[in-house]
């Protein structure tokens, strides 16, 4: 008996078969089916659900339908998971195309009660499980399906299994599997959806998607949601790859206007532009957590740098301060300690080494109490970087540091291995024993180089390969060699010039003196912007917090567009390097052709 309910914003709604009554005072009425916005839904059908604030619809199986005494209509949905949602627990399982996972087990997230209006459309989910109790779908049906599933995801044990027990979340298993009439019904539903859902199966391009969005601009809100659902699904099909990334970019523009008009009407419409990354919300959550964690450590960081107006220069000088301090302090486990030193020492802003050494001793004592966890080798490397930028007089400082070191108990076994190389390079550069060797094979190791030098020049040396970075040539390796004396180095260089030491693959070894680039005192880093602060203190706090943590940018902010510019620049520079290296390689090849012997 059809039961006319009040029309909801001109969306047609009709109750279907009644099922029974229940609840307090028998005021709750259960139903077996209903018609909503032209689609007929029955119990155990699957539908798309739009949860407020989510960018992608959920897929759920309707397991209960009822109307409350206050005329509110509710459905209970048993959820399906997208592979992306459970990818942390997928491990090596490779999900098929269009595969989703049924929720089972005990715990949060298996099912929810939603207002009926959250339903955004019918979804054809076919069960492809080979279980005997499951009516097997034909090839055609599998192809026509929006999604398939044959595995379950247990929300309690976080396990994936393809065995379905006798009941799932209180629902008898026969309702989980395909129902006999179901396939036929969903076929008609598809046809009725007038190709909106069909479009995505052909793999739309971005422009088509835009059209869908703009076409629906004037339509009723529900239809709009379907369009966004369709486009969201298109994204699913394309996958989270480069294409999705690009389409994100292009989506920002067209979908923003429709969405802004939407906001004023229905509340459950997606507010942001269509973006399939649920990880962003997850990342945001983690960020707030991480924010709290690092807030403490970075609060001091920010404090040190927030003394004056937030100009880059200040930061650089603070940086420099930190670097000088780091040289002395050798048991600092994190920048935190240096910053506390910086706060101490910043008042003076002097670079007197003795004064800093005192402060550093104080600071390092403080550090011992704070519990930071970074690996011990990292200690050495932190020092490595700081040592780069300092002018010389390292010997004197070394003596001081060794004193300081004795006062603290740290495990220096790894640390000594790494630190002296940097140090040695510095001294060697000054004394003239440092030689840069080029045109080696990139796969050589440091020991190879040392060995080679000793055999070729009959001289002993200490060598390290220069590590490959973004701007290193991929076919030619470099190494630094420190000879025993200036004379040795000079002799080696002379010999290399006069004669040629040919390595395998017809490469002559090229040697040159010392460090090419002069280490600059102020490290300039472009691209981190700040707003000058003349605002009250409260905003400063926020700004401080914002700068001292990491986050993924959302597509609807200015910083996202700026980030796009940077990424473009990065890509461009990558291409430039590729081209340059290719050009070099060709030049070398050309030259090798002239090689007469062998």
């Amino acid at each position: 008996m059809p039961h006319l309910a009040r029309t909801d914003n001109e969306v047609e709604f009709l109750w279907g078969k009644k099922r029974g009554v229940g609840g307090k005072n028998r005021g709750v009425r259960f139903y077996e089916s209903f018609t909503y916005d032209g689609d007929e839904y029955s119990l155990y059908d699957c539908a798309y659900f739009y949860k407020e604030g989510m960018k992608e619809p959920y897929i759920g199986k309707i397991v209960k339908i009822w109307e409350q005494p206050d005329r509110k209509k509710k459905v209970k949905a048993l959820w399906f998971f997208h592979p992306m949602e459970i990818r942390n627990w997928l491990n090596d399982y490779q999900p098929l195309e269009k595969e989703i996972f049924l929720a089972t087990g005990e715990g949060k997230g298996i099912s929810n009660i939603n207002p009926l209006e959250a339903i955004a459309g019918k979804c054809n989910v076919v069960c492809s499980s080979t279980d005997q109790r499951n009516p097997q779908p034909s090839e055609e049906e599998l192809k026509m399906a929006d999604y398939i599933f044959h595995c379950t995801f247990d929300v309690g044990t976080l396990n994936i299994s393809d065995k379905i027990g006798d009941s799932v979340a209180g629902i008898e298993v026969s309702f989980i599997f395909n129902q006999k009439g179901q396939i036929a019904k969903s076929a008609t539903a598809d046809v009725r959806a007038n190709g909106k859902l069909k479009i995505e199966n052909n793999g739309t391009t971005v422009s088509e998607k835009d059209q869908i969005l703009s076409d629906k601009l004037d339509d009723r809100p529900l239809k709009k949601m379907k369009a966004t659902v369709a486009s969201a699904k298109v994204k699913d099909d394309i996958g989270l790859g480069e294409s999705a990334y690009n389409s994100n970019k292009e989506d920002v523009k067209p979908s923003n206007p429709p969405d802004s008009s939407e906001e004023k009407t229905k509340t459950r419409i997606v507010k942001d532009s269509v973006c399939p990354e649920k990880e962003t919300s997850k990342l945001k959550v983690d960020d707030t957590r991480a924010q709290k964690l690092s807030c403490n450590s970075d609060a001091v960081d920010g404090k040190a740098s927030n003394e004056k107006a937030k100009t880059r220069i200040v930061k650089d000088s603070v940086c420099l301060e930190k670097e000088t301090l780091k040289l002395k302090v050798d048991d600092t486990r994190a920048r935190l300690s240096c910053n506390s030193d910086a706060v101490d020492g910043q008042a003076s802003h002097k670079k007197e080494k003795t004064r800093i050494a005192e402060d550093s001793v104080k600071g390092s004592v403080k550090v011992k109490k704070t519990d930071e966890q970074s690996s011990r080798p990292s200690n050495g490397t932190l020092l490595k970087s700081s040592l780069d930028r300092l002018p010389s007089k390292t010997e004197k400082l070394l003596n001081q540091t060794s004193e300081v070191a004795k006062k603290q108990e740290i495990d220096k076994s790894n640390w000594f291995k790494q630190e002296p190389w940097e140090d040695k390079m510095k001294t060697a550069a000054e004394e003239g024993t440092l030689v840069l060797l080029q045109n080696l094979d990139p796969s050589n190791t440091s020991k190879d180089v040392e060995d080679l030098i000793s055999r070729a020049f009959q001289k002993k040396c200490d060598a390290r390969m220069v590590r490959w970075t973004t701007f290193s040539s991929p076919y030619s390796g470099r190494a630094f060699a420190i000879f025993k004396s200036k004379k040795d180095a000079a002799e080696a260089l002379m010999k290399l010039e006069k004669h040629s030491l040919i390595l395998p693959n017809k490469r002559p070894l090229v040697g040159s003196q010392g460090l090419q680039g002069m280490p600059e005192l102020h490290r300039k880093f472009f691209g981190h912007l700040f707003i000058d602060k003349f605002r009250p203190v409260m905003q400063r706090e926020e700004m401080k917090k914002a700068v001292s943590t990491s986050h993924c940018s959302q597509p609807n902010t200015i910083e996202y567009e700026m980030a796009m510019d940077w990424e473009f620049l990065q890509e461009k520079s990558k291409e430039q390097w590729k081209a340059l290296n290719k050009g070099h390689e060709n030049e070398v090849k050309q030259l090798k052709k002239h090689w007469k012997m062998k």
Partner: protein
Amino acid sequence: MATSSETFEKECAEFEAKVKRTVFVDNLSPQVTKKVIETAFSQFGTVLFIELISNHIESNSTPMCYLVEMENPNQARSVIEDTRNLPFMICGMPRPIRVQKAKAEMFGDRPHAPDRKIPFHWIGPNDADFEVAQEMKRLVKRQTAEASLLLKMQMVEERKLAEKHDVMLKSNYQKYQMIEDILNDGSLRRLARQYKINLSD
């Protein structure tokens, strides 16, 4: 002899495994500390080890590079994919970091084959190929010069972009500030009343 080659192979295998689960991160600001990186990357999984790659060849204004070792190759892959999809910013906006797969040459401590010796030979001025060798040496020098020039040019581009963004950001900020000020001191309300416009939003 056998044992040393065995250990070498084992080392190689371990090293390969390590390379597979390490990512190379660059475009980081000098302010970024290891702790920040660890927290940032722990969203993708467990971070085992972080190492700074210091740069001696070129001038020190290049952005920082780090090697971050994750727990397994899957986590490394998810880091790369996620940062490719959405710009990930650490310790400042809006310059995003760049993450790539690590290569063996990026590591400082590669396993060393115990018996391997690099063959070589000397060529004197009387040798037939001496000229070619000299030419090659000159070529190498020229190429390094070209490389450092490219680097300098890229830094200039970066600076220009940063300045452009700075200007854009400041102008936007002023605009918002202005709007906020107007809202705050009621002049907007006054104007609305005057023009009889409804200020609902």
